[in-house]
């Protein structure tokens, strides 16, 4: 936008003084936008009663749902209401052993020997069934994780299907993916996924693994098991051979048991940097391959020559998408000092229009915080920001009485020495900082132990190319943010992990290339 090319200056003309449309000229101090209830949207909840959640969920081993060895189950709740949704089986070491044995058997006898084009057919079939059932899966994902239906319906589920379709296409073309090499599967993959994108992370892990001929033992996060178990039913429906994918639900120790199982050949983990480091230490010297996709504290850099209204949308999407439960969230906003007041004013207005509430309402933009410990962590970190002198700006939206909620928030007056500028908050909280020159922007953006993603906003193409080559981050978006595609490799530098998921690089992580 030619926002800087002031039309008056171009014209060299003076604007006539006038009252407008019967509306008086508003004095400087009273110029504000009024986002009230003059015309408000009625509730528009997605129908959920047709989708019944079984009162109890078991483990999925060797193509069947089986009771856990411990006989124990734990409650899974809806974070938006704190109502119990179902009980989930607590898997232990013995269950993991059963699952790995089933996966090994399937690998040796069936899956690794099957021609790629046959494997591909199963993936296509799974992708199609996911599309057919996407409404149901979106509703379940919203109920289980607190995510707004708008996102599960329009982002999560289309991407889940896309990942299976994409990797289905590779299954019989692996030789062409890696010219001159003979790609071979690794064996049994042990995979652990987080609670922020339960189905999507499952798709990122399972699709490339089985496309390349590996078999899988996968563990979802304790708070979000339901949709992965529903996906297991889809595997049954698609007649995926028994044992190719096994789902072990449970807690942290269950995941540790998978990583430490001697017959696992490859470990893939998405989650916190803290746990990632522990897992990396466990596999040292075992010969297991490992890929880690960990935390982030991405810089979203807004230059003064950016299209500001569009950058505001990118900032909003960058930090409030999925309540900020996104490892690549643009949680550090670096604004050129010359436009700082304007950007803050626009952000202040924009967060007022975000609608927080029932995740199943089609008009909800901000759903519930996934779990209670996370909510406490967000509160604690924002408080630390206040204690260290930052100013808090929050949406005035009312919070529901039950459930875990946190309003869209940003902090100004933040410097690089604030905890909120250094630590991953993993919530709807943005730290706003300033810079003066492109050099300073790059230096500050890279001044973090993480390196997963970054954003750059400017209308000047040459500046984009210069800056992106200096940023140390795995994914960099220019004039957009949080765009995902199965063809595009995703992963981090430094403490954000190693290995890539998606694209050819993601495929290579599940192949032995001799």
């Amino acid at each position, binding site marked *: 936008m030619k926002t800087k090319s002031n039309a008056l200056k171009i014209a060299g003309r003076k604007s*006539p003084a006038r009252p407008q449309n019967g509306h008086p000229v508003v004095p400087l101090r009273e110029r504000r936008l009024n986002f009230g209830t003059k015309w408000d949207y009625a509730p528009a909840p997605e129908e959920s009663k047709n989708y019944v959640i079984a009162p109890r969920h078991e483990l999925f081993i060797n193509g069947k749902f089986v009771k856990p060895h411990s006989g124990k189950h734990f409650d899974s709740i809806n974070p938006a209401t704190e109502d119990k949704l179902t009980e989930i089986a607590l898997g232990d070491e013995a269950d993991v052993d059963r699952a790995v044995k089933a996966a090994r058997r399937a690998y040796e006898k069936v899956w690794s020997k099957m021609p790629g084009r046959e494997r591909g057919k199963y993936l296509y079939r799974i992708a199609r069934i996911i599309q057919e059932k996407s409404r149901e899966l979106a509703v379940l994902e919203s109920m289980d994780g607190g995510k707004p239906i708008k996102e599960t319906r329009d982002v999560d589920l289309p991407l889940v299907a896309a990942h299976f379709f994409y990797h289905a296409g590779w299954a019989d073309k692996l030789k062409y993916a890696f010219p001159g090499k003979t790609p071979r599967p690794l064996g049994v993959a042990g995979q652990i996924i987080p609670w922020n994108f339960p189905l999507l992370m499952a798709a990122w892990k399972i699709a490339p693994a089985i496309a390349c001929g590996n078999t899988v033992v996968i563990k979802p996060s304790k708070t979000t098991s339901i949709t992965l178990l529903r996906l297991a039913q889809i595997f049954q429906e698609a007649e995926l051979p028994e044992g190719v994918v096994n789902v072990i639900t449970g807690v942290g120790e269950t995941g540790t048991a998978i990583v430490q199982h001697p017959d696992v050949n490859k470990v893939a983990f998405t989650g916190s940097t803290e746990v990632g480091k522990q897992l990396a230490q466990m596999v040292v010297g075992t010969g297991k391959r490992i890929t880690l996709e960990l935390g982030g504290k991405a810089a979203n850099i807004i230059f003064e020559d950016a299209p500001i209204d569009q950058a505001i949308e990118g900032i909003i999407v960058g930090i409030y998408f999925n309540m900020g439960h996104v490892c690549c969230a643009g949680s550090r906003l670096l604004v050129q000092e010359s436009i700082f007041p304007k950007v803050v004013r626009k952000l202040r207005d924009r967060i007022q229009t975000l609608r927080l509430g029932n995740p199943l309402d089609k008009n909800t933009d901000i759903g519930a915080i996934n779990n209670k410990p996370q909510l406490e962590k967000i509160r604690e970190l924002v408080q630390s920001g206040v204690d260290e002198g930052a100013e808090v700006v929050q949406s005035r939206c009312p919070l529901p009485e039950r459930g875990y909620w946190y309003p869209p928030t940003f902090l100004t007056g933040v410097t690089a020495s604030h905890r909120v500028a250094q630590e991953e908050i993993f919530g709807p909280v943005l730290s706003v900082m300033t810079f003066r020159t492109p050099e300073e922007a790059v230096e500050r953006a890279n001044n973090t132990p993480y390196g997963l993603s970054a954003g750059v906003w400017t209308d000047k193409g040459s500046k984009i190319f210069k800056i992106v080559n200096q940023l140390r981050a795995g994914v960099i978006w220019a004039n957009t943010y949080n765009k995902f595609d199965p063809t595009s490799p995703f992963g981090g530098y430094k403490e954000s992990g190693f290995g890539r998921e998606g694209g050819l690089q993601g495929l290579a992580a599940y192949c032995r290339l001799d």
Partner: protein
Amino acid sequence: MVEERAGSFTKRSIKTSAKLAGLKMVVSMVDLTTLEGKDTPGKVAYLCRKALQPAEPKYGVPSCAAVCIYPNMVKFARKFLGEQSPVQVASVATAFPSGQYPLRTRLDEVRRAVADGADEIDMVINRCAFLSGDYAQMFDEIAATKEACGPAHLKVILETGELVTYDNVRLASEIAMQAGANFIKTSTGKVSPAATLPVTLVMLEAIRDFFFATGIRIGMKPAGGIRNAKQALAYLVMVKETLGDDWLTPDLFRFGASTLINDVLMQIAKTVDGNYQGPDYFSLP
């Protein structure tokens, strides 16, 4: 991001009470339009009566904001509506739709339309001046037209379908507002594409920045291509979430449309009565 953000407004789910209130607001914002060579006093009478009372009283539908017509039709509309009317008389002028005529004849058109009783003038910008980079000329012509309007409100049509890029739309919006526009308007309806959500969003953003810079609230009128109730509601959602409640009024937001009105009325009747009625149950403008 412009298209993405504009698209997000179409995903708001407007149901029940919100739908009814929104649709009635749409009716109150319509500039009911006929701009054809074959327009006659008889046709203008149909249009004016429809604008005064769009539907049966039982639906509680407000009158439209204005009728929008050619200069030669202004006196007939004024006569039909009388001196005091809830429906404004808006006239296109300044060599609509091309603007490719001498300035003095364009200004003369404006003065005559106002003398005949026009409350509002919908002018077209000089795209020749804008696209050849002569922004000063474009500015001066708008300012001169504003002066010629006297007490009449001025809507400035950018004809965004001919400006093509968002950068151009944004710049033309700024020049028009600074030169004295009361409203900025997307299109004449004679060029495709006419109004779109992304283009309207860019103009609303320009209005927002102008408000914070000057304290002046400029109105917005998307025109052309808005044919059904669902589209119209998406525009209302966009205004609500971009400029806020203060702009949700016919004083500051209008729809330029002709076929839109009966689709909106059909939806209102459906919401009130619970079932759809055929098109013959709604009078033609």
